[in-house]
């Protein structure tokens, strides 16, 4: 039962990153691929009216974590206090930028919110990358399972670590590049005209750099947590993640060569999902590794809710998931194809 819930929270997180990650990537690109106010509206319209639905996957993840692993939820959210508030403030700014940015047809108003959109999404992408790095590296968890972490300590990866160190920052940067490529791929698929051409050029360049970055970050991870490589090889579920990742990479490669925009986008989503899936399978059952003493680590087993809570949640949770997929289908089909900036898309209010 605990294993099943571990899979479900990993699933929620993965879907969230695939859906909202592209919006972070778009944030990085926004000011570069769209030069005129009209083009910027086009990018906002491409993000579309379902952005808050994307964001809710994170809330769903938080809620699922709370119901299935309440102790992990409490320890990690209070431990990552400042980082989480930074993320929350960025969400506030990002949401406002999308909702009110097009509200007034005024150049300064729109330029301001375009910049806010970019800034908040870049920071969100970076912070989520750093969070992933933190998950791989671990946190200074004490014997009670609690921890309080500062932004940075000595930038080292052992002992009393902070949120930022050389490893987590480089993980943040690599994730941001991957999400930017993901966003560029999405914009290529959804837009036309100059925004499309610039995004396509950007996507090709970014995807060319990613293999190099990937090797670097793998080597870093191997240095920080040498035991993970062995755990990955010994875990068949992680192989499945690697297989999805490889299939995605193949789709991106052939998609980019053949100009198949949709295939590239699906492939890039699969790459991210495969990566996260393989990572989640590898670290299991430890969720938050303790850099002070491995015995303090928070695992799926020592943080899970009681069996009755898990069983009860399993009754309603799949219903909610099925419903939300239905909503997506119901709304999403009305917004298929390339976006055109018009009054019935998000670009204009």
């Amino acid at each position, binding site marked *: 039962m605990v294993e099943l819930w571990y899979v479900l929270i990993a699933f929620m997180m993965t879907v969230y990153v695939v859906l909202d990650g592209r919006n972070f990537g778009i944030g990085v690109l926004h000011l570069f691929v769209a030069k005129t106010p009209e083009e910027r509206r086009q990018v906002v319209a491409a993000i579309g009216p379902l952005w808050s639905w994307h964001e809710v996957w994170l809330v*769903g993840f938080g809620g699922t974590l709370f119901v299935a692993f*309440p102790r992990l939820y409490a320890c990690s959210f209070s431990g990552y206090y400042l980082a989480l508030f930074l993320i929350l*403030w960025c*969400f506030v700014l990002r949401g406002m930028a999308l909702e009110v940015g097009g*509200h*007034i047809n005024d150049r300064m108003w729109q330029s301001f919110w375009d910049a806010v959109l970019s800034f908040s999404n870049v920071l969100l992408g970076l912070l989520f990358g750093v969070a992933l790095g933190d998950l791989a590296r671990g946190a200074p968890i004490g014997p009670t399972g609690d921890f309080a972490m500062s932004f940075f300590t000595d930038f080292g990866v052992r002992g009393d670590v902070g949120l930022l160190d050389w490893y987590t920052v480089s993980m943040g940067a690599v994730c941001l590049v991957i999400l930017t490529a993901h966003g560029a791929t999405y914009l290529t698929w959804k837009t036309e005209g100059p925004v499309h051409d610039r995004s396509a050029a950007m996507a090709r360049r970014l995807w060319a750099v990613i293999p190099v970055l990937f090797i670097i970050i793998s080597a870093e991870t191997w240095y920080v947590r040498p035991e993970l490589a062995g755990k990955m090889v010994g875990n068949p579920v992680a192989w499945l993640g690697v297989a999805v990742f490889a299939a995605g990479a193949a789709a991106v490669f052939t998609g980019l060569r053949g100009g198949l925009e949709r295939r590239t986008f699906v492939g890039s989503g699969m790459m991210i999902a495969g990566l996260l899936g393989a990572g989640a399978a590898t670290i299991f059952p430890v969720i938050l590794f303790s850099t002070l003493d491995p015995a303090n680590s928070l695992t799926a087993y020592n943080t899970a809710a009681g069996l009755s809570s898990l069983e009860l949640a399993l009754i309603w949770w799949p219903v909610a998931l099925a419903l939300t997929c239905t909503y997506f289908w119901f709304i999403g089909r009305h917004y298929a194809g390339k976006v055109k900036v018009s009054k019935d898309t998000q670009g204009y209010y």
Partner: protein
Amino acid sequence: MGLAWFLVYWKARALWTGDERYNEAVRFWAKIFGLNFAVGVVTGIPMEFQFGTNWAEFSKFSGGVIGQTLSMEGMFAFFLESAFIGALIWGEKRLGPRNHFVAALAVAMGSWSSGFFILVTNAFMQHPVGYGTGPDGNLVLTDVVAFLTNPWALVQFTHNQCAALVTGSFAVTALGAFYTLRSDHLDQARIYLRSGTAAGLAASLLVAFPTGDSQAKMVAHNQPVTLAAMEGRFHGGDMADLTAIGQPNVKLQKLDNPIPIPGALSFLANGTFESYVHGLDEYSPDLWPDNIELLYYAFHLMVTLGMIFILLMGLANVQRFRGQLDTSKWLLWPLMLAFPFPYIANSLGWMTTELGRQPWLIYNLLRTNQGYSQEVNNGNVIFTLIGFTGLYFVLGVMFLYLVGREVYHGPVSEPEAAHG
């Protein structure tokens, strides 16, 4: 939450009668609803996270119970709302009239189910039911039906949702009055006044009776010390007075310059004028709510405002049936100016609920000072509180500016002309 059902109602009218004026009303109010929603969604997400960030000990202790409803809120309500809100505001042409109606209905149901789940959670904190204690000393859910149908939750939900309808009704009415007084958009103003005052009277009555009355009885039976503090009742006894006016003097344990209504409190709490009502002196001071004065004023002001709402909406409906509402300037002015007061009344009601529960986080189970995150230091809490205060202030100013701008532009007939 209140406005959502106006949108559903108008959309339904438009769909069945083909009356374009109702579509126009939906289009206009959907924009205002969208602004509300934008501010609501960006400020709501921090709240979902704060259980973990700021109330870690509370989350560990009660996660086995309230984790269920908080998670349900995310998975059922937020997904529903967030999927359809964009389509409701921008998608009228893309979706077609029928699906646009579905979107309005989905958003209304999403926001109300969100209210339900969060109020079940709050009701558990007020009046815990259906729980047991696990081997590690933390709470576990033993009876999910009892938990979801907590009588406190049902009373609180109806009271709160009626209050939401009051708020929505006053906003709709106020704008109708505003346009009528300016002789502007009169077609639309008439719809707003008619729908707003009709729903407003019903909701204002329901919020007082039976929902508010049941809520007070619920407090009287389950949290007698809270009721005593709400009423500034320092000494227990039979045939308790209800104080219409008076200031609690906690130091001297009495009410200054009270104007009492004999026996009324006994009647409201227990249904008979002679019955016994507990006083604060029967309880150890460490069980008293921490801020009795604030609790007392919050409750009394809420009740006073509630009565003013009934009076105002009653008058409005009398004039409407006489066909004179459009010309009654003396009434349109107060109707227009009244719109902030339901917001104030709502806040006062929540203050009454939350201050009244003190010193408990979960009534009789966990004190507030046992629930906060031990690992988060004061400096970080103050820093983030200041940050939120600043950010929310800016959001508030911008929200008022943007709504004011929409009101100034007014409703327009074609969806194409909705901006520019």
